[in-house]
């Protein structure tokens, strides 16, 4: 029963391809851990979806401009995280900015009408959220909270936490490109090797799969990538992507993609998003956060910080 083996579980969640990979000796424990980790991802997806009218997010949003909504402890923790990110990013990371998507139609490649953008911008801003640690209230009707900015990363960490809870020490969680490594490879013949993570280039090539932009040997920690390639349209050679600045309502344009390596995926994901929003100031800011990054600038130039801290 103590032969080492590798198992990989592929599944879909949060509209993304996901996988759990693990090295271990007790297959039944590995399977149970994987099933619970997948269930945990689905629980989070279900709980915080803004597409479900009965989710906590929908209840908060439906009460906007009216009464405060009492939230459970986990939701409160996420709101605290959101508040701290807003503070640390000087207001750039703002979970109320989701309403701006109503102004940008990436499918039709249309610019927003100025007055529409103005009226939506009036509904953006964490300063309009009253959060006392137990109840949350949005000041105006039409305001919305959206946990999409860190939900997938949080679920990645939670899945890793479930595997860890089951005693797994050599596992890699991947939810649609957000990764958490619980420890290096465990197979004895691999001698503690790391997982090899491929960073995809932000621009696809005409010939299908492009050569990896970089390979990262990852033994432990969280890795996340944000980019301007998920939803966008082109106009006169300029790319307009779905990462919107909450102050202006306009897409960011300095970075094609930013990958960040941090102690956990929630941190890495928040940092990539803030870095996209910070524009040219991002490298210095990421350095100050003590994380490693790999960023592709608008002109294709690749920047990354050195390993020595």
């Amino acid at each position, binding site marked *: 029963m103590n032969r080492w083996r590798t198992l990989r579980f592929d599944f879909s969640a949060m*509209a993304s391809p996901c996988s759990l990979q693990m090295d271990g000796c007790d297959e039944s424990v590995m399977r149970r851990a994987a099933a619970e980790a997948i269930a945990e991802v689905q629980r989070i997806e279900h709980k915080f979806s803004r597409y479900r009218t009965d989710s906590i997010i929908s209840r908060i949003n439906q009460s906007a401009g009216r009464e405060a909504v009492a939230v459970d402890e986990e939701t409160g923790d996420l709101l605290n995280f959101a508040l701290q990110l807003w503070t640390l990013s000087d207001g750039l990371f703002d979970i109320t900015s989701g309403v701006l998507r109503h102004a940008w139609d990436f499918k039709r490649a249309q610019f927003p009408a100025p007055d529409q953008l103005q009226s939506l911008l009036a509904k953006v801003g964490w300063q309009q959220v009253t959060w006392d640690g137990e109840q949350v209230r949005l000041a105006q009707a039409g305001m919305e909270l959206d946990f999409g900015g860190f939900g997938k990363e949080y679920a990645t*960490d939670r899945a890793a936490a479930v595997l860890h809870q089951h005693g797994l020490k050599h596992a890699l969680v991947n939810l649609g490109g957000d990764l958490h490594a619980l420890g290096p490879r465990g197979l004895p013949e691999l001698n503690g090797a790391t997982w090899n993570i491929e960073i995809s280039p932000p621009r696809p090539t*005409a010939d299908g799969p492009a050569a990896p932009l970089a*390979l990262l040997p990852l033994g432990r920690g*969280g890795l996340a990538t944000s980019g301007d390639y998920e939803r966008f349209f082109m106009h006169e050679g300029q790319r307009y992507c779905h990462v919107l600045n909450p102050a202006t309502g306009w897409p960011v344009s300095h970075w094609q993609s930013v*990958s960040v390596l941090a102690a956990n995926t929630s941190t890495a994901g928040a940092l990539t998003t803030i870095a996209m929003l910070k524009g040219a100031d991002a490298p210095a800011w990421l350095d100050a956060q003590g994380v490693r990054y790999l960023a592709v600038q608008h002109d294709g130039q690749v920047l990354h910080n050195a390993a020595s801290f």
Partner: protein
Amino acid sequence: MNKSPSSFALPASGVLLASLVLPGLAALATFAPLTASAETAPEQTTVSVKYGNYQDSQANWDRVKVNAAQVYVQAPIAGEWSIEASGVSDNVSGATPYAHTQKSGASSGGKTGMSDERHAGDVKITRYLPRAAVSASLAYSTEHDYTSTAVGLDARWSTDDNNRTWTVGYGTSHDTIDNTYSGGSISGKHKNTQEFMGGVTQVLTPTDIAQFNLTRSIGSGYYNDPYKLYENRPDQRNAWIGLVRWNHYVGAFDASIRTSYRHYSDSFGVSSHTAGVEWVQPTGRWTFTPGVRYYSQSAANFYFDPVLNAQGQYDLSGTVQHFITLRGNTSADQRLAAFGALTLSMKASYAFTPSLVADVKYERYRQSAALHLGGAGSPGLDAFNANFMQVGLTYRF
């Protein structure tokens, strides 16, 4: 494998500390100090953790009070980003979800991030062995008029010299068709399919690689297209599918030739051949890839030709009258008719620099009854032509 060892102990910074309020994360980020012996990890992946007033983190799973001044968390064990490296990766971060996001966007009105689209049943498990891998998958999907459950098993293993790889696979699926929801009259119809696949990929010489796959598919149940007229197909469909590929490097021209042939034959009476060849010719900064692909299929036994009038045009009432005289299985689905198709393609690419490549691809596709192998195909089919042109510019960093 790139192993650039590094070990760090980092003071926790703002965003990382902020994340530690999230349930469970503190335990992950700061669990007990690791030593090389505890982890049986070699020295290059050893992590040293400086760890202050933080005893809660291991035991207390859900709630952790963070004392910023005293917390040190271990940094990830990671080597350097190796730019333009080539190697086998375990996983991907970045643009990969792109295609998927696009796909789900197209079908769900632009949703990304957290959404309700769940495929709760889809899980594939792969077990890796020293020279082999075995996968098992379970998939469940449902659309408004279709529910499908599929189970698959596949295995692949390689010889010691890596010159030969064997593949075997088995899959079974169970579908339920019900279109009453969308206004149809079909409900409670089922279809079951089993598929067996075996294949081998063999390196023949340093300049030749060949692949052979054989698939047997056995199906029974409801095969009609619920949205088409004249449909009364057999309730059994069994097929053989053979695929051969051969790639050869032609040293004299510094070129490669890629060839493939696929044969398909089923109990509906449909039999098809697909043959393709491509020549990949680099010359200086240019690479030219001309290609040709030919396809021909015979009609299903129960496919009936439409009735045409004296002018050769489709005669609806004549076709209906003909149809009601038919006994047994019938279908007028053009995909079950006899026809052929030819695709000619040419791709030219030009490398301005090794990292900047422009390419133009042109394809011309023609499908018609006259292209059917060995004489005229089904009458009354409109020929179909398509031109495909693609211009690309590729920049690799």
